[in-house]
């Protein structure tokens, strides 16, 4: 267990954002955080990333609270891709991704850094955009560049800790169908002995296809946590999301379809 929360609660005023959450992420696996809006996914992510100290409970990264790590060493051990995709000023894509190597200054050679940046651009399928100005990109392109930056930040092993973590908050939100799969495929390939990924996702089917384990959150509580197949049960999801779901077996991977109760369009038009 290398990144774990123990009975973590977070409150803002009278609102409880997280309640008694105990969760562990391991290197070598993709852990999906799922749940409806306001379930506490982003809050849990910020606790794991060390942005926010829990009000009660503890969070430990290699035996120490992330908030007590020196900020630079922490940055070598975990990368965070937030939902923010804005960059002030006209930096190029290459310059944005190169910022990922900042915490490694003086520890890796310039040649290694260049190689890592090139590889990360490739893995996130943005090599062709490298010379473009970031503000001229579309939303989906920006998201892929931010993913490349997060990948480049924890690309190689560091002396600070035995393994690294890649944290992504809704990394596929603006991506087209092909790139949604390409990005999660890339994350799967990236995750190995030394790296674990924690990914917030809204698409249950993407989670089913690419996550090793799933943590299901609802209203600040951890409802279920375990291997993807066992955790993503249609009745449990239906309960949490408040929709009617059916699971289809797609060559061994569960696939969920939503049963709508809405009137078909033609009928609705007829009612007018």
């Amino acid at each position, binding site marked *: 267990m290398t990144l774990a929360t123990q009975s973590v609660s977070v409150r803002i005023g009278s609102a409880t954002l997280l309640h008694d959450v105990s969760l562990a992420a391991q290197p070598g696996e993709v852990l999906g955080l799922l749940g409806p809006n306001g379930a506490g996914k982003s809050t849990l992510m910020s606790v794991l990333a060390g942005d926010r100290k829990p009000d009660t409970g503890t969070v430990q990264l290699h035996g120490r609270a992330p908030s007590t790590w020196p900020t630079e060493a922490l940055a070598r051990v975990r990368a*965070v891709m937030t939902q923010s995709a804005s960059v002030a*000023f006209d930096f190029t894509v290459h310059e944005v991704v190169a910022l990922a190597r900042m915490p490694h200054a003086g520890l890796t050679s310039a040649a290694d850094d260049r190689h890592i940046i090139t590889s990360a651009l490739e893995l996130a399928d943005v090599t062709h955009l490298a010379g473009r100005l970031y503000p001229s990109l579309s939303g989906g392109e920006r998201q892929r560049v931010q993913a490349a930056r997060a990948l480049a930040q924890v690309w190689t092993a560091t002396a600070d800790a035995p393994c690294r973590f890649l944290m992504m908050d809704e990394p596929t939100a603006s991506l087209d169908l092909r790139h949604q799969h390409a990005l999660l495929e890339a994350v799967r390939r990236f995750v190995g002995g030394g790296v674990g990924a924690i990914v917030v996702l809204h698409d249950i089917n993407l989670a089913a296809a690419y996550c090793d384990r799933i943590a299901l959150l609802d209203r600040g509580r951890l409802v279920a946590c375990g291997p993807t197949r066992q955790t993503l049960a249609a009745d449990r999801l239906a309960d949490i999301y408040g929709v009617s779901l059916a699971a289809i077996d797609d060559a061994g991977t569960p696939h969920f379809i939503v049963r709508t109760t809405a009137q078909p369009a033609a009928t609705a038009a007829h009612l007018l």
Partner: protein
Amino acid sequence: MTTMALNAGSAVRRPATAPVLLGLAVLAAVFGLAGLALGPLRIGLLDTLSAFADRIGLAVSTASQQQEAVLFAIRLPRVLLALAVGAALAAAGAAMQGLFRNPLADPGLVGVSAGAALAAVATIVLGDKVLHLLSPAARPWVLPAAAFIGGLLATAVVRRFGLRDGRASVATILLAGVAINALCSAGIGFLTFIADEQQLRSLVFWTMGSLGAATWKSLPLALPLVVIPTILLMRDTRALDAFALGEREAGHLGVDVERLKRRILIMVALATSASVSVCGIIGFVGLVVPHLLRIACGPGHRLVLPGAALLGAALLTAADLVARLIVAPAEMPIGVVTALVGGPFFLWLLARRLRLADT
């Protein structure tokens, strides 16, 4: 146009840092020399150089005694001050724009110039009652000291408003800066209203800026206060690049965000207060110079910050030369020159921005 051509055409190339900085340093040196040689009393370039060579024992000066007196007693301190203040204002502007992630930010944004101006104007208008209590030797220091402290105080108030739980909110600082600027303007307005004829003259002159106060007496104190914080700003160039991604994102990259904000605000307040306290308010340098660098060389702060300092030094020296020559032997307030050049230039920048956004 095909997609291929579009992509190829829009790939951006950046110039190398060292040659650009070297070129700008040469430009500053050239304008500095021009500032020494030109003026109502002309001193030839060779005479100027030989006078300097004479001082360090390398050659015999060909300049007349009068020329040497003007050169060393009047022009040299003035040019040194112009170089230092130009560098400070432009670098402070670049740092503020990076910190606020906004290309329209200006050192004056956090109330530092307005606070210094209010204190200076108060000294001019109300100082009579107090000044005669001081020894004659101390009197010339009262106004710059008041302006310096006024600028720092205003920034401290603005920063205090932006603090919550030990974290500084950049947006709140910006809004508090607007309020403090308005309050200081109101104070200046009131003091202007009650000022007498002679106070009004010195007050107007001060608020439009002048490098005329540069003497060997004031420089040893003023120069370090202007130059040291400017140099210290150069430590944070990499962190400011990360800041372009957002505060939280910069933190994820290992930047100690709160320390960076505190450090930059303090250095900007020191450099700007010290500049304003010796020269009055000189606008547009802090706003326009960093823009020029970004347009020509890209937004990376490792080039923009030192580059802005060098270009600011060059341009303010040039502006002072214009201010001295255009209505010689009288002198134009330098703030008028920088605003006359900077204003239209800024409009051109805005128009260019809109044009680029369209395509």
